[in-house]
């Protein structure tokens, strides 16, 4: 019974990631000949150029293996990104199983029905592990399916082994988040810590990949061990030891999460500090933050929001501080230096900073929008919105307050990132134009607002499916900007991607058109939300 429930709870993620993964890998494959050409020589030249340019992105994406082949190209272009996105999913699932179920009352129900805590964690973990495996296999099957059409080797065994390695690494990421989520008392804090830890491990792997003296720290990151398998490319390697090691690590982490879960009370953290006896409180709070739904929302998520802001601040500062080292390390390669021989040091650093910081910041803000939508969706389903509407609060006001809450929270995160970057910039030796850095940072806000506007719209009308809908939208948006040029689609198609709209303001000329476009997306989403929320029934039943 618990096994079936556990499986059912992941069905949306399973469908979304499996179908999405299959389609994206299929379309990337379909675009392979457009990008690489049809002759062996053009494909070899294409592979050489990819290998060369890829070195500047080695901080986040492992270097390609045989990118002149369909499997190698997809491994670099699609699977490397997919791993990051799916790791966020795995992290959220780990926290959701660790703490989210508890907040929704599911954990108490299961335990009350006679399911032991050990069995509960094992059943939920086994179900998610299976879901991950299916999603990973689906993500490589698109490559297998399209290969004959583009006259390439389907490399079935290699693709499946790559999927196995991905699933093992992602499962380890899930287990890390599951274990961490046992420690704090609040779900929001658990989310910030669990997902934050995975982002940190991604960064650690990036540093290990690009700075030789720091390569040893990569061993703690599941991304490092997943990178050791490159079998999606013909001639790539499958590291059996690394894959088994990841699976064993996942099992050990889940094994550690079980006693932690058994030791703590439901609704409490693992550690409780001395409870003081105190008189009963008989008065309502006079906290001014509680006077409006939007400020109440900010108050309620103050710890989680503080974690987001400080994590962004620290990450921004860290990225700025490593940019020069990463760039200088890259330019020791004469071939890569030749690519940039006409470029001045400033723009090169700016370009790299644009990739390793602003690129990450975009993903972080899109992730924050998904987390917020998940919160709104939960509030809708557990009756919180119904309770709010039982007070003299209109549906229109609920939407406006949500938009305001999101705008303020995302602005704080953007500010945190900017403060981190600006504080480190003078000593980082990058010689960047402060105005460009400020503009690039400022433009992150309308980018976040665009996602928030769409999030408010879907959460207002379809709260039950809002999270997978927005997450799927984020993935499609991300890859749209990538695929549109490959398929030689018109500019307006690429401009449908908010990521594409953001562009590269840290290196390019400053234009406020993207900001206006993204603000327009926000306003359209917000306007749609105002209309949609009036039409639907609000009910927790």
């Amino acid at each position, binding site marked *: 019974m618990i096994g079936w429930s556990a499986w059912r709870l992941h069905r949306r993620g399973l469908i979304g990631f499996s179908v999405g993964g299959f389609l994206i890998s299929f379309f990337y494959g379909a675009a392979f000949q457009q990008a690489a050409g049809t002759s062996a020589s053009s494909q070899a030249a294409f592979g050489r150029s990819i290998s060369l340019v890829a070195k500047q992105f080695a901080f986040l994406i492992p270097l390609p293996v045989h990118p002149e082949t369909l499997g190698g190209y997809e491994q670099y272009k699609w699977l490397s990104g997919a791993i990051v996105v799916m790791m966020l999913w795995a992290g959220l699932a780990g926290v959701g199983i660790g703490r989210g179920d508890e*907040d*929704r*009352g599911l954990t108490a129900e299961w335990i009350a029905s006679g399911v032991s805590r050990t069995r509960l964690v094992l059943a939920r973990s086994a179900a998610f592990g299976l879901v991950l495996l299916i999603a990973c296999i689906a993500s490589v099957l698109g490559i297998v399916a399209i290969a004959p059409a583009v006259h390439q080797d389907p490399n079935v065994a290699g693709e499946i082994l790559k999927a196995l390695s991905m699933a093992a690494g992602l499962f380890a990421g899930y287990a890390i988040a599951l274990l961490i989520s046992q420690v704090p*008392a*609040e*779900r*929001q804090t658990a989310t910030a810590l669990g997902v934050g830890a995975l982002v940190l491990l991604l960064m650690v792997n990036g540093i290990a990949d690009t700075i030789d003296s720091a390569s040893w720290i990569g061993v703690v990151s599941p991304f490092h061990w997943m990178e050791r398998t490159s079998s999606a490319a013909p001639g790539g390697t499958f590291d059996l030891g690394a894959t088994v090691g990841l699976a064993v690590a996942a099992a050990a982490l889940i094994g550690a999460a079980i006693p932690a879960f058994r030791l703590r009370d439901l*609704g409490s953290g693992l550690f409780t500090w001395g409870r003081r006896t*105190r008189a*009963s*409180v*008989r*008065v*309502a*709070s*006079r*906290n001014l933050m*509680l*006077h*409006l*739904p939007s400020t*109440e929302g900010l*108050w*309620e998520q103050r710890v989680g929001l503080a974690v987001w802001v400080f994590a962004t601040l620290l990450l921004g500062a860290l990225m700025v501080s490593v940019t020069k080292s990463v760039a200088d390390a890259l330019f020791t390669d004469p071939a890569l230096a030749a690519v940039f021989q006409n470029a001045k040091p400033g723009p090169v650093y700016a370009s790299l900073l644009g990739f390793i910081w602003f690129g990450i910041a975009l993903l972080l803000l899109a992730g924050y929008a998904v987390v917020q939508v998940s919160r709104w969706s*939960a*509030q809708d389903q*557990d*009756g*919180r919105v*119904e*309770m*709010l*509407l*039982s*007070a*003299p*609060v*209109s*549906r229109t006001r609920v939407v406006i307050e949500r938009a305001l809450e999101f705008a303020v929270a995302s602005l704080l995160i953007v500010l945190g990132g900017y403060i981190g970057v600006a504080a480190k910039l003078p000593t980082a030796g990058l010689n960047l134009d402060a105005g460009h850095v400020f503009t690039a940072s400022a433009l992150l806000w309308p980018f976040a607002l665009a996602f928030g506007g769409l999030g408010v719209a879907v959460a207002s009308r379809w709260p039950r499916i809002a999270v997978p809908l927005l997450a799927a939208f984020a993935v499609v948006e991300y890859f749209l900007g990538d695929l549109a040029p490959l398929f030689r689609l018109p500019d307006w198609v690429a401009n449908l991607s908010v990521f594409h709209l953001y562009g590269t303001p840290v290196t390019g000329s400053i234009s406020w058109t993207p900001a206006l476009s993204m603000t327009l997306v926000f306003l359209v989403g917000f306007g749609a939300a105002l209309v949609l929320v009036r*039409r639907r*029934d*609000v*009910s*927790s*039943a």
Partner: protein
Amino acid sequence: MTAAIKTQSLTKDYGGGRGLFALDLEVSEGEVFGYLGPNGAGKSTTIRLLMGMIHPSRGAASILGLDSMRRSVEVKRLIGYMPGELPQFGGLRGRDIAGHFGALRGGVDQARVKEITERLDLDLGLKFRQYSTGNKRKLGILLAFMHRPKVLILDEPSSGLDPLNQQELFKLVREAKAAGATVFLSSHVLSEVEHVCERVGIIRRGRLVRVARLDELHEMRVRRVEVEFAGDAQPQLFEGLPGIENLESNRHRVTFTARGSFEPVADALAGNHVVNLASHEPTLEDVFLTYYEDQPDEVPA
């Protein structure tokens, strides 16, 4: 007296026979009205329609003359609402929740909050997730009553409360009525509402099957009769008599239920050697349960 709550052909059709159908109901100002029905009968759907949470398929509802849907915000200024189950407020403390909902209504009457929390022995210093089921219900009572609303809509308010706190809740309801408030109280257990309600409506399968004063329900007597004969039981004496149902016999004894007048039974027994005759008075609960059982929907309203 004007209607505090009025519905006209109020319908919410979820399809497949589920929902609420053609509800015509009036609750007068200052009245305490019990809304009774088994689980899934449509009580919460009615309440959500009154609260403007869901859109009616047909018909309309109004509170103190204001349309529930179109003038939703004004309506809710007048209402105190207690849902069947409070939502998850997670890490917020009771005092934060009371402060938030008080602020949304224009301010908190701290003296009133203190009075109710003391009467219910509710500690507002705990986080919501630390509250027991009973304490969550108490918090729901506080949120509904703390602003002295003109209309109270309470969805199964006493479930989960211990007997002492149930009595305190009923006192609060009586006080609200004494202050002129109208109370609409849903329940699936009659004994919960018979302490405070003047009238009850009984809903079954989405249709209102009966609205009556409590004393009228008492008058709808269905007696359980046992007749013990000196010789063999003679059930044929009662077959076909008006109001006689559930006829059973066993050696010397005949049992049946008799609805309405007892005269035909007395006539049938005349001239027979009866050694014992017992007629059991039904409890109000028995009367109520007759409406829960499968009956044609055309029970007189």
